[in-house]
């Protein structure tokens, strides 16, 4: 019996376990998923919570895993790649022949001095966690005006567009409450602009201008002076706030550092086309847990899992892996007022305008605000639970397609 152990039962771990359970013979393979808790959280839903979204975002992990997959609850403490074993913090040891690290990335407010303290979830908020998103909902309900700062500590973060989506949504929310004039909105980013790729910048930068949202770029926070309600950067710039919505530093799991498996942010260095660990061939890392130079997003977990599953079967049969992941990512960007846009890109091609997924037919539009894109985003929740996580076929190719896309200078004007 060969043993495959998958660490993390989130988006990537669940998809991979379900896909492989269908493809690997039950009598030859034992598949085990380990996660620290019982409930799977639909993270894209957190974006809507501060504005009143009420759907239940959680399901039991066990129910999301196919029969024939063993599910263990436990916190991973360390991996020993030489002994091929995983030690849980309660002392249990699980041995493997092949290991998939899918423990994602998480918010680390403890990494910025001054962020955690009495003001955490009072005047300093996040929406990347379940508790954070609900605390922020209360804060927004009670907000009477002043300066509202949306802030990103550093890249990479999961869902890199989420802070911008939040900014658009909060602007629309304030307008809806007739208090937009009482609020100064500022978007603070360590990057050199709200959007960095040139074509997306041109299309999207305008949206921020139109909504009178100020952008403070190249701002790398050193500490927060919570008493003075001020962000202080390494080059000693200061930005005051009345309400701060921050995206804390995102980091991979601590056991990755403890096992010597990670880089400076605890991400596992992998081959960017096969997801195989560069240090240990029997270890793969999928989803947000690896250091791929693409977005950390559920869509990447999905597309790369298609490649990974085929490669894994070749690898365990002892033949060369022939499938190559191209960095394909695909993200809806909510822009408020019931509209959204969509971006589709990979390692080599920046987000371009056009139609998706079918060249002329769409029905989604790339880099353009439409109602259809917003409904696409909302419909995604159903797709996530019922098609994506079970590992069913979805009509979205793993490889990015140029069909339907064009460079703006090739744009044909009517």
């Amino acid at each position, binding site marked *: 019996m060969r043993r495959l152990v998958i660490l993390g039962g989130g988006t990537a771990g669940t998809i991979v376990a379900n896909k492989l359970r269908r493809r690997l013979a039950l009598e030859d393979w034992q598949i085990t998923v380990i996660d620290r808790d019982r409930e799977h959280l639909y993270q894209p839903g957190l974006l809507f919570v501060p504005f009143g979204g009420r759907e239940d975002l959680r399901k039991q992990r066990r129910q999301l895993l196919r029969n024939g997959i063993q599910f263990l609850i436990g916190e991973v403490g360390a991996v020993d790649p030489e002994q091929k074993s995983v030690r849980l913090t309660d002392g249990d040891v699980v041995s493997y022949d092949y290991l998939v690290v899918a423990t994602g990335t998480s918010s680390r407010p403890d990494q910025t001095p001054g962020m955690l303290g009495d003001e955490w979830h009072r005047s300093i908020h996040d929406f990347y966690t379940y508790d954070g998103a609900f605390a922020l909902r209360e804060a927004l309900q009670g907000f009477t005006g002043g300066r509202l700062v949306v802030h990103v500590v550093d890249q990479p973060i999961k869902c*890199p567009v989420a802070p911008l989506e939040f900014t658009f949504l909060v602007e629309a929310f304030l307008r809806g409450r007739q208090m937009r004039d009482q609020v100064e909105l500022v978007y603070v980013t360590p*990057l050199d602009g709200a959007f960095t790729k040139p074509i997306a910048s041109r299309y999207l930068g305008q949206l921020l201008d139109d909504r009178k949202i100020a952008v403070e770029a190249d701002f790398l926070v050193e500490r927060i002076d919570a008493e003075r309600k001020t962000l202080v950067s390494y080059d000693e710039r200061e930005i005051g706030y009345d309400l701060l919505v921050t995206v804390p530093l995102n980091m991979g799991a601590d056991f990755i550092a403890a096992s010597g498996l990670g880089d400076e942010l605890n991400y596992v260095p992998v081959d960017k086309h096969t997801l195989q660990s560069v240090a240990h061939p029997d270890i793969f890392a999928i989803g947000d847990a690896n250091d791929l130079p693409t977005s950390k997003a559920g869509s990447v977990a999905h597309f790369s899992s298609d490649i990974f599953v085929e490669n894994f079967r070749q690898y365990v049969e002892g033949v060369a892996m022939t499938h190559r992941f191209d960095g394909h990512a695909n993200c809806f960007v909510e822009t408020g007022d019931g509209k959204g846009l969509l971006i589709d890109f990979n390692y080599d091609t920046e987000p371009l305008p056009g139609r998706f997924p079918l060249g002329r037919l769409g029905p989604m539009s790339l880099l353009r605000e439409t109602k259809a894109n917003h409904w696409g985003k909302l419909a995604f929740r159903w797709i996530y639970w019922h098609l994506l996580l079970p590992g069913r076929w979805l009509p979205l190719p793993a490889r990015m397609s140029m069909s339907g896309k064009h460079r703006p200078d090739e744009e044909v004007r009517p």
Partner: protein
Amino acid sequence: MTATVVSVGDTTIHVDSEGFLTEYGEWTEGLAGQLAARIGIELTDEHWKAIRFLRADYPSHGETATLRRVSTLAGIPIKQLFVLFPGKPAKKMAYVAGLPKPRGCV
């Protein structure tokens, strides 16, 4: 991205539209001094520590190191990187070290 050919001192190099070197092999220590001068920086031993780290890290990592990576692995505090390369340290270091501009997302 299309590269253009420019002359810096008496060397000819390939750069992208923002002036970042596109050929890893075209960089020399002499060139670094000239690139630094163009952005008003005079290179000291401390600058060299950061630049040498970036050069050595790039081939194995395949990406230009972030400030956090330089700080953790080369042991130079982020604050100090802002003193050495004022304003936009990540970009300025990459420029002088002849590496691609650090990656953004969208």
